[in-house]
């Protein structure tokens, strides 16, 4: 610790006692040898930060085209699409392929960010149905059955508590939210009596096509650690048959980033010390013995402190420079008076940096997320001058994928099996004429909801006659009404994807739409979005 004081102030009449002279100098020399602490250093000295002293960012991404072409190609994710990584159907956790990270740390907190895009394949032509877009059906969901997939983060073989998507009781049944007006009636109806109806299999992700992002902060001891994003598919509890042979869910785009945040770094400094040997009786007091060998030596060391002289924890926020280049969050929401912003732009194909309206096809291209009145969601003017990492997180409130209602059985409706909202992150370099999309971030959501938002009948008491539909919230609250999570990691520096010269005009979120069984551009789903945000964290690596 900190402040030290001499035993006595040397005055003219003091005897030159070697013990007292030693007490004048020795504590300062001892303090220098790893005992200087936070109280000894002035605010803002801002020492040089060693490379990756604050954090080390690991990132793996796999981009995989979903088997689609442009919005008007008519392609679809049918049962024959098997090029992704299949989520096991047996309910066991499996690591998402090719993004697992193995890293060696000190005592650290790991900030883990993962994302995956899954497809429940089986979209097929529904011959005889003339409604554009609704000419596609799903061979396995049949419009009512959920995908039953779960994701989680696993560290060293253990699932991190709280990261599992879905309910903790995976076989929980959910009572259906209505109440008969008279349950004591004597009619032959299964809605009477003290019992109630339940929905099964709603404890995991249900949509056929959906992106998932899972994050956690997890403390680890020193050592080597394996960080995985894992997935599984829960068995059904409803009375339908087990998964058919081709009833498969595949993962395509996926990413895993781990930010190692050391909390107690391993010793990495060289020992720094200064010797101030003790005076013995009858030693001559000379400029050399008192000055050069002791006081000067200690003074020079203390005026030029080396790393090993400071105690652990000696530098805190008073002294250290921030290695956070910037941390920005941009937000948009529909302009006043609007419930949502419509985005109707044809998906240009996987990884294609084509923007709406494209010169070759005015219906095609990525459209920048905005408030609907010309204000775009983007983080502007990002200049990188040293080795750095940008962690980009985006969220889009997706109200409705669009499409047209299609009956799937006597009571349930689905607007369009094969209608999709597509989103991705993109950036524009200052030297480029046009932005570039990050293909690994492409995320898709299909029109998955059943019986909600069709505005058929105002929700009310259930009529046991069986002919009425029962509905959910109005369209203004969205048919899908989900958050679309996006993430990406951009590394700048030698040997990295981006160089220092890549000044960015902006980073942004793009959106588009597509529909299976395409008929015409007019039939493109009108994707309705609400609020959206974009977070860009600039982490400097250090030197």
């Amino acid at each position, binding site marked *: 610790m900190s402040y030290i004081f001499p035993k006595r102030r040397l005055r003219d*009449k*003091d005897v030159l006692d070697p013990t007292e002279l030693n007490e004048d100098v020795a504590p300062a020399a001892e303090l220098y040898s790893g005992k200087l602490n936070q109280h000894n250093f002035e605010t803002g000295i801002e020492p040089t930060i060693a490379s990756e002293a604050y954090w080390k960012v690991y990132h793996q991404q796999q981009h995989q085209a979903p088997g689609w072409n442009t919005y008007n190609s008519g392609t679809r994710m049918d049962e024959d699409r098997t090029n992704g990584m299949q989520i096991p159907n047996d309910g066991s956790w499996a690591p998402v392929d090719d993004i697992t990270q193995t890293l060696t740390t000190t005592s650290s907190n790991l900030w883990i960010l993962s994302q995956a895009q899954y497809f429940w394949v089986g979209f097929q032509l529904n011959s005889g149905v003339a409604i554009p877009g609704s000419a596609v059906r799903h061979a396995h969901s049949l419009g009512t059955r959920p995908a039953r997939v779960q994701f989680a983060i696993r560290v060293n073989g253990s699932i991190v508590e709280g990261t599992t998507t879905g309910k903790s009781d995976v076989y929980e049944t959910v009572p259906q939210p209505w109440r008969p007006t008279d349950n004591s009636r004597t009619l*032959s109806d299964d809605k009477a009596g003290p*019992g109630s109806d339940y929905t099964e299999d709603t404890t995991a992700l249900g949509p056929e096509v959906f992106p998932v992002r899972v994050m956690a902060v997890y403390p680890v001891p020193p050592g080597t650690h394996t960080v995985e994003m894992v997935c599984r598919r829960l068995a059904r509890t409803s009375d339908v048959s087990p998964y058919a042979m081709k009833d498969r869910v595949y993962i395509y785009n996926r990413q895993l980033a781990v930010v190692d945040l050391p909390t107690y770094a391993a010793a990495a400094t060289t020992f720094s010390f200064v010797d101030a040997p003790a005076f013995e009786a009858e030693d001559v*007091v000379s400029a050399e013995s008192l000055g050069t060998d002791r006081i000067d030596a200690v003074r020079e060391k203390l005026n030029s402190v080396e790393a090993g002289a400071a105690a652990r924890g000696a530098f805190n926020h008073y002294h250290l420079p921030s290695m956070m280049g910037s941390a920005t969050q941009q937000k948009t929401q529909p302009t006043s008076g609007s419930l949502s912003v419509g985005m109707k732009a044809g998906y240009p194909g996987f990884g294609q940096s084509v923007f709406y309206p494209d010169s070759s096809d005015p219906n095609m291209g990525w459209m920048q997320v905005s408030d609907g009145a010309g204000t775009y969601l983007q983080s502007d003017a990002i200049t990188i001058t040293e080795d750095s990492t940008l962690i980009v997180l985006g969220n889009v409130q997706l109200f409705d994928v669009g499409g047209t209602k299609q009956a799937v059985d006597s009571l349930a409706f689905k607007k369009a099996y094969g209608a999709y909202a597509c989103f991705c992150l993109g950036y524009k370099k200052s030297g480029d004429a046009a932005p570039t999309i990050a293909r690994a971030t492409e995320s898709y959501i299909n029109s998955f909801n059943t019986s909600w938002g069709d505005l058929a009948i105002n929700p009310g008491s259930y009529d046991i006659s069986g002919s009425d539909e029962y509905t959910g919230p109005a369209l203004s609250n969205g048919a899908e009404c989900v958050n679309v999570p996006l993430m990406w990691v951009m590394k700048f520096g030698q040997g990295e994807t981006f160089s220092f010269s890549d000044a960015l005009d902006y980073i942004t979120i793009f959106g588009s739409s597509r529909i299976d069984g395409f008929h015409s551009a007019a039939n493109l789903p009108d994707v309705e979005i609400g609020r959206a945000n974009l977070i860009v964290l600039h982490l400097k690596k250090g030197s």
Partner: protein
Amino acid sequence: MAGPAQQQTRRLVVPPGEAQRYYSAASLAFKVQNFTATPEGTITSVLGPTAYEPLRDYSAHIGSDYVTAIYASDTPHGIFQTNLQGGLVDMLVIRAGSKIYRHAGWYRGWEILLTGLSSENRPRFPDQFTVLNDLVIWTNGIDRPQAIASDGSIANLGFAEIPAPPDTAGPMSHLHDTANFPNYYGYSWPGRIGTVGDVLNGQSGSLLSGAWYYYLRYEDSYGNLSAPSPASRPTIVDTLSASPNTGITDAEFYDAELADLTRQFAVMLPEGPDECVAMHVYRTPDTKHVSTIPRFLTRVPNKRAMTYPDNMADSDLGSEMDSGVVVPVFRVMCTHQGRLVIANTLEDPGIVRRSDPGFPGTFSSTEFVYPDSGGAEVTGVASHDGALLAFTENSVYSLQDFSVPVPLAQGVGCVAPSSIRAMANGALIWLARDGFYAMTGGAISKVSTPIDRTVRNYLNRGRLGMSAAAYDSASGEYRCAVPPAGEQHNTLILCFDGAHWRRQRLDLHIADFTATNDWRQYLLGLGHKKITSSASKLWDSTRVETYVMDRSTKHGVTTAEDIIYRSAWLRGDELGLLPINVRSMFVGMIDAWNDDVTIKFYRNGSWAEHVSMTDLKSIGVNDDSGVVTDVAGAAVLGTSKVHDPRLFWRQIPAGLENVNSWAFEISATRPTRLHLASFAFDISAATSGSVKGRIPLRSDT
């Protein structure tokens, strides 16, 4: 005067301690002021103190939450130093005036952690600090106790408020509604709550009527829990059979299962206070059929008002809820076996409570004891030698078995909680009404008998409660700052090395002491400097200072108090009956300071000065050793040497004739230094007739 043949020489190694007695043991002096013992068995004058954070002009460097100095309008109350986070964080905290400050270091001065505290100038108990679980705990017995974390964040210790009970919603039954069965109104969702009975009609399963109650506890950022809320209003489920209408023949009609009858409830949690970071929700099982003891339901990590859907079966509830109490305002505390022990609360002066292990702000309602059978006010608590001790003003109790107080001493108590400190030899020292006591190995004995005169007659007994002590590892002394008689502040420091007492008077008011628990082993004091230049005020009006005791720098505190060594009354025989002549005194000293000091002689029990000399040198003669020529002010670089100080003797012609007893006093004004080793006297019997004939007759004037 006797000739040389009749001379005797009486020799004394310097008595290192004091005793104000006429017939004191020869090994004690009458007054040893501003001396400290050395490992060599000698005594040397004390140095310092110096300011811990000298006043420098760096106000431009610091923010509004920092100060370069603490001004004297802020009464000094307490100081505490410790290291947190395994030594990573150096924590020096002081309380002055209405604020708590943390030392922030070089060019940052003092960081203001908290304002608005009571600065009581008439306190009965001093501020108390302790450390537990990386938290510094503070109390002054008036305001709410505080917990200070390693990052300087400060918060009330635990919760003083009892949460409001949560509101609840469950199913309802319309008694006059024939259209629906019981439990079908209100918040009626099928769930897993309810007690199943299978004998209502003897044939089919049924749900029994039941009632459930909810409780709430707040959690703060250190994991402390508040006292539980009162019970919520009951959430009720009415009796219902799975086949309520047995006369109906339609088999499908009442196709209900027991799982259809059980319910879930909604729990509306109120918004918590600022310190709340999470709410612990508890629920009883079915109180009609299972138990009335609340059990853990869930932890909601938020302080916001919210509704929690409860669908947990009685069998899945967690551990039983502890009964807790609010954190009271308390006057004394210590730590023991990982718990915070508090005592003497505003409401209950005779109580001692202990916290849950590791959680200094969580107190169970059952963890308390009254050490004194009559509930006498607890004046101190201490953990020592594996036992928890509780003090009242007149008794000492062992709480080794917390629930069974065992009196260790009756008639001996503690009047100053901050005087309770342990020495390196294992003795626990404290200040009782009649002096200092020590407990070693469970045995209590008085250790201040030699200075009874000081303790009984020369201390302000009404202010003893504000005395403050610390153990100074460097000197091996227990030092206790006490208020002298007629003074309101702790300006006298009594020092005990385990065998002898000495005193320090440094023109300072020491409100509190703390010993650093690191390699430096400093003794720090918080207080004011006493001034004499102004008739209108007694204390330096500029600053409250943190003093480093026994250290001297150019920022040192210049104090005019003298170094004084006054001997006990020396006698020619055991009773002082024999008149003698003291021809010469020989003083054995150690080279310390190249200047003169004063020596005075007294005779026959009178402190009226008999003879005085001001040219006693505090350094030996200038022989070939070079000690004198090489003193700091005359040393020549390259020529002068360092020298081990010599033991040397000086002869003083005392010339005391026909005295029954005599004494001497060696004094100097600091910064003069003095190092005493031993004394010797040439004495002879005062002859010329019967020796005893010189004793005055009964009526002599």
